[in-house]
């Protein structure tokens, strides 16, 4: 169990290093709602929860996760809550209030930002959230710093009484690099479960206006204390010599170092570890010895604006470059930073000889072979082409891709349901929305109550694959166990919808296309209808079946019967279907097929058959026996 060793060097992912840092800091609780690029933090913490006594939970959304962590902090224990950047929007209401109220036990809020939007709907810069809330912000640039700053963050939180925001980015969270392991926390080493005590303190814990007025100045006091802490702990270092200054942070520092090395020029670098509150004296002193300064930071001119205002206040006349020569969108990289340094120094810009990538068939992410989401999109389009079709965030957002093109909108988690409520009114027509199980529990629930309450003509299809698939298969309330594998109630979405007052509720197996179509047609006859499509994630199901050494059925195309009409390909777009342009025949890649039979069900020529264990062909694919098999896949997934 190398991860829990107490010395040596391990190649750790930035996110693993954060979990490790929390273990070294003797954390009591890690709560999270998953989201790329943050998800490995709770995953690793959960994996070692039993050995370390740390309480790890997946909460239903980020706001709840924040509240769970605060409960530990207010019980005098160390707590960490992790999320992707947009998760902090969901948690913001609680975060902004608790920023006034403060921490008791050290409390770290980890926000994994995603400059470049590798897997996100925006690239908001959550350093701004720290400033907005009045919470110190630490920015690591390597896995080693990710671990170190996690530990420092808990100390900073306890030294000041503030929450601390640890802001990583994709390039830190998802970089693997050597990390030095140090001693684990006492309790973690012993595997002791910690228990705390909440001590009443109404002025602090009850956010009535009179108390909030007293707590607001506390926010400013804590920020001042944070500066003292940073100075005493040697955060924010000056590296190198010269009258050209570079102020930078995080992973950008590495781009700066490499560019300076290759250019063979020297510069004096101020590497900020705590970017908020900014140490004004340090910045003023640094800049006063430079003739010009370049601020290298991804996204917003967060540091740059503060630096300029510090110089203005002190009447210091130093040229400051930043977003005038560096982009404000997308992530930075070696070439962008090198060119900015060249620009600032008046050198000619080196343009790399980058070869042009020819026009190629695109390979965007697609719904996996056997994914039941595909069947739902097929059926929804078939049953009602004209309805507006809002969808949500999850694997099913890929329903937007060719050839399905079965969704009209995607905003943010849970937004499909609220949007549908409004669209049903604004259009005066039925709306057909799709949402995943995890997203339904995250923020879909209150919006469904709204639709029932306000009588919106809505069919909501819940794609219940029993898991949070998109972010790497984390359990959720539909799964039946918790983050650490404890058996827990397996909430039935259909029952919930009934209890909430939906007019029509039906659970169907989306592998059975005719059943699915029937349910969707019936749903259209009622005001608020909820259709729960229950079929586990095909990727997960196939890998679990393989583990259990159970046979996965596969399907094949009878070349003599295939006319090359491409109906299967054009309606489903399954990656296991391959069209041979010369032979004008479709075939099925047996390595990819996971046996859903959707292609066999839509083939107009009945040319697709199940390959039985004895090698014989079964063209009648939709039998009771097969349906039972699918049911079993759902009910005995784990």
């Amino acid at each position, binding site marked *: 169990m190398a991860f829990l060793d107490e010395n040596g060097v391990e190649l750790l992912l930035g996110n693993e290093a954060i979990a490790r840092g929390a273990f070294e800091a003797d954390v009591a609780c890690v709560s999270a709602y998953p989201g790329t690029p943050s998800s*490995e933090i709770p995953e690793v913490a959960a994996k070692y929860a039993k050995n370390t006594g740390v309480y790890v939970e997946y909460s239903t959304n980020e706001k709840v996760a924040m509240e769970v962590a605060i409960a530990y902090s207010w019980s005098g224990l160390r707590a960490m809550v992790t999320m992707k950047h947009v998760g902090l929007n969901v948690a913001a209401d609680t975060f902004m209030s608790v920023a006034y109220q403060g921490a008791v036990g050290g409390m770290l809020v980890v926000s994994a930002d995603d400059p470049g939007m590798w897997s996100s709907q925006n690239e908001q810069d959550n350093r701004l959230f720290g400033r907005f809330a009045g919470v110190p912000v630490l920015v690591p640039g390597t896995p080693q710093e990710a671990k170190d700053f996690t530990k420092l963050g808990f100390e900073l939180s306890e030294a000041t009484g503030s929450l601390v925001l640890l802001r990583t980015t994709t390039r830190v969270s998802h970089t693997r690099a050597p990390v030095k392991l140090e001693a684990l926390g006492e309790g973690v080493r012993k595997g002791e479960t910690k228990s705390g005590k909440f001590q009443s303190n109404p002025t602090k814990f009850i956010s009535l206006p009179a108390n909030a007025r007293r707590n607001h100045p506390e926010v400013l006091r804590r920020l001042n204390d944070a500066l003292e802490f940073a100075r005493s702990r040697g955060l924010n270092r000056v590296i190198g010599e010269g009258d050209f200054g570079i102020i930078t942070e995080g992973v950008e520092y590495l781009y700066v170092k490499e560019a300076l090395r290759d250019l063979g020029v020297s510069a004096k670098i101020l590497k900020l570890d705590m970017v908020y509150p900014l140490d004004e004296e340090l910045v003023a002193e640094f800049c006063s010895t430079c003739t010009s300064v370049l601020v290298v930071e991804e996204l917003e001119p967060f540091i740059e604006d503060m630096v300029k205002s510090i110089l203005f206040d002190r009447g210091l006349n130093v040229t400051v470059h930043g977003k005038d020569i560096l982009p404000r969108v997308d992530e930075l990289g*070696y070439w962008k930073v090198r060119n900015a340094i060249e620009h600032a120094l008046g050198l000619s810009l080196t343009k790399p000889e980058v070869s042009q990538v020819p026009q190629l068939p695109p390979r965007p992410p697609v719904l996996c072979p056997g994914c039941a989401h595909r069947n739902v999109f097929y059926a929804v389009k078939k049953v009602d082409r004209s309805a507006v079709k809002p969808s949500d965030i999850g694997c099913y957002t890929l329903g937007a891709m060719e050839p399905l093109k079965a969704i009209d909108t995607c905003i943010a988690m849970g937004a499909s349901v609220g949007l549908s409520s409004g669209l049903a009114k604004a259009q005066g027509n039925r709306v057909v929305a799709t949402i995943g199980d995890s997203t339904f529990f995250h923020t879909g629930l209150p919006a469904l109550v709204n639709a029932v309450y306000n009588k919106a003509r809505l069919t909501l299809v819940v794609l219940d694959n029993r898991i949070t698939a998109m972010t790497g298969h984390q359990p959720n309330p539909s799964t039946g166990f918790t983050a650490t594998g404890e058996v827990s109630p397996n909430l039935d979405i259909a029952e919930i919808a009934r209890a909430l007052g939906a007019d029509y509720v039906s659970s169907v197996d989306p592998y059975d296309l005719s059943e699915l179509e029937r349910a969707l047609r019936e749903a259209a006859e009622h005001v608020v209808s909820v259709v729960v499509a229950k079929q586990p994630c095909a990727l997960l199901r196939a890998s679990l079946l393989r583990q259990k050494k159970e046979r996965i059925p596969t399907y094949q195309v009878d070349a003599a019967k295939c006319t090359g009409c491409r109906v299967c390909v054009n309606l489903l777009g399954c990656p296991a279907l391959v069209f041979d342009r010369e032979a004008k025949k479709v075939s099925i890649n047996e390595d990819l097929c996971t046996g859903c039979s959707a292609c066999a069900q839509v083939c107009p020529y009945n040319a697709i058959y199940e390959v039985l264990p004895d090698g014989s062909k079964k063209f009648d694919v939709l039998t009771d026996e097969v349906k039972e098999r699918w049911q079993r896949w759902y009910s005995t997934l784990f």
Partner: protein
Amino acid sequence: MVFNIVLSGVGGQGILTAAKIIGRAAVHEGHYAAVGEIHGLAQRGGSVIGFVRISDEEVSSTVPEASADLLVAFEPLEAIRYVNYAKKGTKFVINTSPIVPVSANLGNVVYPSVEGIREQLQSFGPVSAFDALEIAKEIGNPIYVNTIMLGKASQLLSELVSRDSVERAIRESISRDLENNMAAFDRGYSL
């Protein structure tokens, strides 16, 4: 010294596992290694790219464009898709077995010729191209494509990272079915 490796392929082929193994092996060898991974959407059968940078000092994990020393492509289309990382002298290791993307089944989009891809890459540097899927199936399962590719890549890296270090990293990273994976690694190494 910085040695830049780009690994590319299709989600599900185990590109990130291979990247991690090379990174671990480099650390065993006493180098600094930074492995860059992009998770999330990339898993869903999409195009995937991973980086390994081996160095004497701390470096970022992103390989700058036009600076790959070695490009290992688990699928031919995904080799040419990342030609923007190639420079004069880049070495290539390519699995010639195509995985046709959904887009090339629809309409008129055509999958390019594998021979053509190989020729284009040869204008940069030496190309080792072979059908790793066929070898993997001989060993018994398509999943061994991963360790076969790793084997060939390791052979090209042997001046920087010893075979022993890579084998040790494989043993640390792959728990199941080690014997066949080692056999696959050996097949790749001997190509």
